[in-house]
C-alpha cells in the first residue's frame, strides 16, 4: 500500500468525512441559513434573470462584436494626448471591460507601452465598475441611486487616483516604450451610427422592461410605468427593423418572429413576460441561423451567460447562506455583528468597509448579492458604496499581479489611495442620502 501516491484522495476523503460528520443539521440557525440560500437563489431566478440579466447579456454581446475596440485603443498610445487618454480610460470600461480577464493585460499594456501609469491606473480602477452588467444589476437590485453613485464615483475617482499616481511617480525615460501597439485592424462592416442606433434600441428595451413602479401614482414616470410593455413592444418593432436593415438578417425570419410574438401577446395579453420570452428565443434562433456578425453576436451572448451565470448563482447561494434573505435575515452571520461593524455612516464603518472590500475577491458581479445581504442586515449606505468602490477594482489576488507589473511601492500607494477614496466617497454619500 503506497500512501504517498494516494495522499490526495486520502486527505480529500478525510476532509469530506469530517465535514459531513460535524455537519450541524440539527442546529436551527444552520438550517435557516441553508433555507435562506435557496430562497434567495429562487428570488433572483424569479426577479432578475429574464428581464435584467438576459437582455444585459445580449447588450454585452453586441458591444463585443460590433464596437470597434481598435478605435478605443489608439487613445492609449504613447503619443495620445494626456487628457484624452484619462477620459477614455475612465469610461472605456463600458466597452472594453465586459470580461474581467481583459482588464489586467490591458492595464499592463497601457502602463508599459502606452500612455503610462496614470491612464493605466484609471482604466484598472473604473473598468470593473462600469460595464453594462454591473451597472444594470447594481441599479436594479441595490437601488437606482446606488447604481448611479457607483458609476459617477468610479469615473471621477479613477481619474483622480490616476492623476495622483502620475504625479507621485513621474516617468523618467520613454525610450523603452518605442514599440507601438500592435493591433491588427479588424474588418468592420457596420457604420458607427448604425451600431449606435442598434445598441440604443437594445438599451431602451432593457431599461423599459425594468422600469420600477414610481412612488407617486401620477406624472410622466407613472404613465411610462403603466405603458411600459406597450412602449417595449414599439421598441421591439424598431429592433426588428434594425435586425433587417442594420444586421441584414433575412426579412422572412424576422417577420416570422414578429408574428410569433404578436400571436403570443394576443393569446396571453395578461402575461407580457411570455411574449418577451418568445421574442428572446425567436431572436436567438434567427441569429444562430444567420452567418457572420449576427451569428457571432449570439455566440458572444451565450459566452457571457456561460461565464457569468454559474459564478453569480454560487455568489447568491453564498450570500443567502451567510447573510440571509431580504426582510427575513437569518443568515449564519449574526445581524448585530454586521451592524456594529458597518452600520450607520461613521468614519470607522466606512474605513472598515473599504479595507475589507479592497482585499476581498469578488468574482464577476457577486459583489451585488453580497452587498445586498449586508445592507439587509443593517449596513449603512455610505459603507455600502465604499465597499462597492473598493471591492471589484482590487483584491488580494489581483494586487499580486499588479505588483508584478508596477512594483511594490506603486502598488502600496495605489491600494492606499483606493481605500482612502472609497472611504471618503462612502462617507460623503452616506451623509447626503
Amino acid at each position, binding site marked *: 500500500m503506497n500512501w504517498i501516491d494516494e495522499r490526495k484522495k486520502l486527505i480529500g476523503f478525510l476532509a469530506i468525512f469530517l465535514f459531513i460528520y460535524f455537519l450541524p443539521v440539527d442546529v436551527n440557525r444552520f438550517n435557516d441559513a441553508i433555507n435562506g440560500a435557496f430562497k434567495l437563489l429562487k428570488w433572483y431566478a424569479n426577479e432578475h434573470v429574464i428581464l435584467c440579466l438576459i437582455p444585459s447579456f445580449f447588450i454585452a454581446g453586441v458591444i463585443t462584436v460590433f464596437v470597434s475596440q481598435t478605435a478605443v*485603443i489608439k487613445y492609449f498610445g504613447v503619443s495620445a494626448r494626456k487628457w484624452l487618454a484619462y477620459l477614455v480610460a475612465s469610461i472605456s470600461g463600458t466597452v472594453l471591460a465586459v*470580461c474581467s480577464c481583459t482588464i489586467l*493585460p490591458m492595464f*499592463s499594456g497601457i502602463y508599459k507601452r502606452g500612455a503610462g501609469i496614470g491612464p493605466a491606473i484609471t482604466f484598472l480602477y473604473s473598468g470593473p465598475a462600469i460595464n453594462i452588467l454591473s451597472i444594470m444589476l447594481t441599479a436594479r437590485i441595490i437601488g437606482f441611486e446606488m447604481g448611479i453613485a457607483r458609476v459617477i464615483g468610479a469615473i471621477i475617482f479613477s481619474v483622480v487616483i490616476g492623476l495622483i499616481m502620475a504625479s507621485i511617480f513621474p516617468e523618467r525615460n520613454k525610450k523603452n516604450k518605442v514599440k507601438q501597439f*500592435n493591433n*491588427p485592424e479588424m474588418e468592420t462592416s457596420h457604420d458607427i451610427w448604425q451600431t449606435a442606433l442598434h445598441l440604443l434600441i437594445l438599451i431602451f428595451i432593457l431599461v423599459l422592461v425594468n422600469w420600477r413602479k414610481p412612488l407617486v401614482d401620477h406624472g410622466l414616470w407613472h404613465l411610462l410605468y403603466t405603458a411600459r410593455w406597450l412602449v417595449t413592444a414599439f421598441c421591439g418593432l424598431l429592433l426588428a427593423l434594425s435586425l433587417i436593415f442594420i444586421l441584414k438578417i433575412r426579412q422572412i425570419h424576422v417577420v416570422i418572429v414578429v408574428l410569433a410574438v404578436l400571436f403570443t401577446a394576443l393569446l396571453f395579453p395578461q402575461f407580457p413576460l411570455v411574449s418577451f420570452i418568445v421574442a428572446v428565443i425567436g431572436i436567438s434562433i434567427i441569429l444562430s441561423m444567420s452567418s457572420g456578425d449576427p451569428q457571432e453576436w449570439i455566440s458572444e451572448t451565450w459566452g457571457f451567460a456561460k461565464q457569468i451565470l454559474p459564478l453569480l448563482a454560487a455568489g447568491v447561494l453564498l450570500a443567502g447562506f451567510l447573510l440571509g434573505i431580504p426582510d427575513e435575515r437569518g443568515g449564519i452571520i449574526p445581524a448585530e455583528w454586521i451592524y456594529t461593524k458597518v452600520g450607520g455612516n461613521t468614519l470607522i464603518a466606512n474605513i472598515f468597509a473599504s479595507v475589507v472590500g479592497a482585499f476581498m475577491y469578488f468574482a464577476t458581479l457577486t459583489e451585488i448579492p453580497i452587498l445586498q445581504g449586508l445592507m439587509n442586515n443593517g449596513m449603512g449606505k455610505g459603507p455600502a458604496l465604499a465597499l462597492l468602490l473598493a471591492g471589484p477594482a482590487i483584491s488580494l489576488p489581483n494586487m499580486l499581479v499588479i505588483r508584478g507589473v508596477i512594483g511594490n511601492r506603486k502598488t502600496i500607494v495605489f491600494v492606499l489611495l483606493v481605500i482612502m477614496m472609497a472611504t471618503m466617497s462612502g462617507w460623503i454619500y452616506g451623509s447626503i442620502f
Partner: protein
Amino acid sequence: MIIKILGVGCPKCKNLEKLMLTIRDRYNLKYEIQKVTDLDDIMEYGILMTPGLVINEEVKSAGKIPKEKEILKWLGVE
C-alpha cells in the same frame, strides 16, 4: 511554422487554442502551438487585448477569436 497563443488563461484564449488544434488535425497541418501566458512576454508583442494569435512571430489578431476562414488564409490553406 510556429503558432503562439497569447493570453493569461481567459476562456476565449482556451477556445482559440482548441480551435487551432482542431484546424491542425482537420487539415493535417504541421505546426507547433505554444502558449504564452506570462504578462510581460505577452506585452512584448504589443497587444492590448487577449487572446492574441501570433503566426511566425507576426501578430495576426488580438482581442477576439478570428473567424476560421481568416485563420486558414493566414495559414496558407485554401
